[in-house]
């Protein structure tokens, strides 16, 4: 996605690639079939040792980036892991960390939780969607009612919570009398129940989580009620990770489809020689370059916390979200019958891209956000 990488970045990415290929080759992901239960905890702890959870966290909180630009490093890592369709909690944990770091110093202290997440000792996920709901992070139905003796009582339900079954901490959006707030709730707290949900993406598990009278202390608050900045930051990081991982998968499937077109013959010539298909390859090549351009521009804006970051992540999501599916479905088409089989790799990436298309705001939702940000 970026043209110029430092030798440290190259090493970081090569290590990530080897680590993933050794333990989670595509065949293992395919074999897990539809009973996705998640990933190996020890594996995640080792991934954390490689730095996957440290990139967005300042050094004084136990983190550290590769290049000094943590968001861009994270985007590169996500692209690499997207190429290999990695399981794990990269998006989930880093989105939560983005929020915790953004809110650091504005509310109760979460240094210990941040450190445990960076170390891979614990896993966190953002509980933001609600059953049957669309993307609307600032209007949760789940309530957090202040208790007389201090603390809050959480009542409500979330779903599409990534890695819900494996998360130790849930970052829960909730309505309070003072506006939307976020709470860091231990998954093992009384009143929390997790129900697995069938996931389109074979490498990623999701779950529905109920909060029945869950009592949390004041110290579970992240930032202050009514301060939406952390939520926006989490969204921005989630979108950068999504777009980057999709870019990785797109390049891999495009290359595979191009090779196929050279090798596959019809009417005595390679199908790559038909102009109808050549032109579609040219379009796909163009769109993929554009996906990379918009994703790296979004990552740079989020890195710099620029005023335009909100708009640019939405631009990227709107574009990558739809074009990725167009590219992948056309790759299926150019493969012919083999393209719609379980044995082929295409559906593994199509599953990931479709899930990413729908989560954290659909492309259309982001188009409307872009219109709003343009002053309409």
């Amino acid at each position, binding site marked *: 996605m970026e043209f110029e990488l430092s030798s440290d970045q190259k090493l970081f990415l090569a290590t990530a690639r080897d680590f993933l290929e050794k333990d989670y080759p595509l065949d293992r992901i395919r074999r897990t079939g539809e009973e996705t239960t998640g990933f190996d905890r020890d594996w995640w702890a080792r991934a954390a040792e490689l730095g996957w959870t440290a990139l967005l966290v300042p050094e004084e909180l136990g983190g550290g980036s590769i290049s000094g630009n943590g968001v861009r490093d994270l985007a590169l890592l996500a692209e690499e892991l997207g190429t290999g369709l990695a399981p794990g909690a990269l998006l989930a944990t880093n989105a939560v960390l983005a929020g915790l770091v953004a809110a650091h110093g504005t509310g109760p202290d979460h240094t210990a939780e941040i450190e445990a997440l960076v170390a891979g000792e614990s896993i966190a996920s953002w509980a933001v969607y609600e059953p049957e709901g669309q993307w609307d992070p600032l209007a949760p139905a789940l309530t957090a009612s202040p208790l007389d003796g201090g603390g809050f009582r959480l009542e409500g339900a979330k779903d599409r919570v990534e890695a819900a079954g494996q998360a130790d901490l849930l970052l829960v959006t909730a309505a309070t009398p003072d506006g939307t707030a976020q709470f860091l709730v231990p998954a093992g707290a009384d009143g929390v129940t997790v129900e697995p949900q069938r996931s389109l993406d074979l490498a990623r598990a999701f779950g529905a989580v109920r909060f029945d009278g869950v009592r949390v202390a004041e110290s579970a608050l992240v930032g202050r009620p009514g301060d939406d900045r952390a939520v926006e930051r989490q969204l921005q990081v989630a979108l950068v990770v999504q777009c980057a991982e999709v870019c990785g998968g797109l390049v891999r499937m495009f290359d595979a489809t191009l090779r196929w077109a050279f090798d596959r013959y019809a009417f005595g010539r390679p199908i790559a020689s038909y102009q109808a298909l*050549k032109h579609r390859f040219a379009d796909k090549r163009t769109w993929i*370059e554009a996906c990379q351009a*918009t994703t*790296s521009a979004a990552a740079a804006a989020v890195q710099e916390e620029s005023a335009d970051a909100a708009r640019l992540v939405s631009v990227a999501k709107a574009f990558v979200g739809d074009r990725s599916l167009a590219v992948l479905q056309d790759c299926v088409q150019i493969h012919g019958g083999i393209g719609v089989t379980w044995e082929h790799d295409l559906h593994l990436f199509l599953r990931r891209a479709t899930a990413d298309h729908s989560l954290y705001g659909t492309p259309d939702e982001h188009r409307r956000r872009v219109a709003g940000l343009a002053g309409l």
Partner: protein
Amino acid sequence: MTDTTESIESFRARARAWLADNMPRLADAARLSGDDPAHWERARELQRKLHAGGFAGICFPEEYGGLGLPYAYQQAFSEEAEGYEMPIVLNIPSFSICCATLLDVGSEEQKREHIGAAIRGEEVLCQFLSEPSGGSDLAGLITRAERDGENWVINGAKIWSTFAYGADYGLCLARTDPEKPKHDGLTMFLMPTRAPGLTMNRIRMSDGTDEFCEEFFDNVVLGPEHVVGRVNDGWTVASRQLYHERTAVGGGSIYTSGYGQPPTRSRPDIVDLVRRAGRAADPDVRRTVGEAIVMSTVHEQLVERVSAGIEGGHLPPAAASVPRLFHAEETEAHADALVRAAGASAAVASAGNAFEDVGLHYLCRQAGSLGGGSSEMARNLISERLLGMPREQAADRGIPFNQIKRGTR
């Protein structure tokens, strides 16, 4: 300005101050349509101002009248120049295609004379490439140049030459040897647009404007100093020219100064349009507006990425067709979005509605997919040169030009 060690920041600050003192504000500019001769006078005048101020030809070498600075300086200047009236109409094709080509392949003499004159606002250049018989198959052109002593005598016709009526010279590709295969018998000439024997007509476009021209050459005589590159090596010159054209049309030329489009093709502002049409609350319209902004933003990001990629050697030069193709898609999408967003306001003109802008703009929706080489040709280039896919079968490859079959239209 010859101090190349000046930092970008200092250059930018100097540009800002100079612009404020010298250039007219865009808001005060008379709205001259691009096909109005007064527009051309104005553009030359603005260019002369830029030159007098030491801000013209920023990326052209100093020996040819430019400043010899890296692109980042030009970008800084263009950013600072937003809100000022700039000679935008000179960007394409004069500076970014014609002067860029002369810089690559022109003689020392031609470079000194013509690039310098263009930078000073004294000369404007245009392209005489396409012919009535075809534009995509450029090497199949039939305009002939025959030797007469040391001179050349040119007969034939060119068409679709943008802004030729405002230009002084056209880069004109002609056949000098019909016995050779089609690419091998061509020569590029720098032809004065007012040469005796040249007749120029304006062509009316579907939106009623006439920025296109057609030219007929009836024994136009040119001396040897008008040949650009070598005789019968015109395809090398044309290839550079087409490369610069794709880059310029795609939006990635380093030789353009100032952002925006000339007024003939200026596009209505979609946010403003929706407000005027009273449709801002409609979620469907909001989606349409968002999509238009997404496309134009991604286009800019793509141009930046591919320019950097080619410059840094990470992408081959053939990648210049990528933003060119996306530019076409973006302009089509934008024209569609405008019509959708305007709703019922696109059909008739009445006070304050959007008809003029939107409906007329829509008529030339395909211009961006044809001018600068069609989208189909861009797809051929991307698939063949960038992806290495098999070339299209060509019935005329290697055959002497005068034995090739030609169509009847």
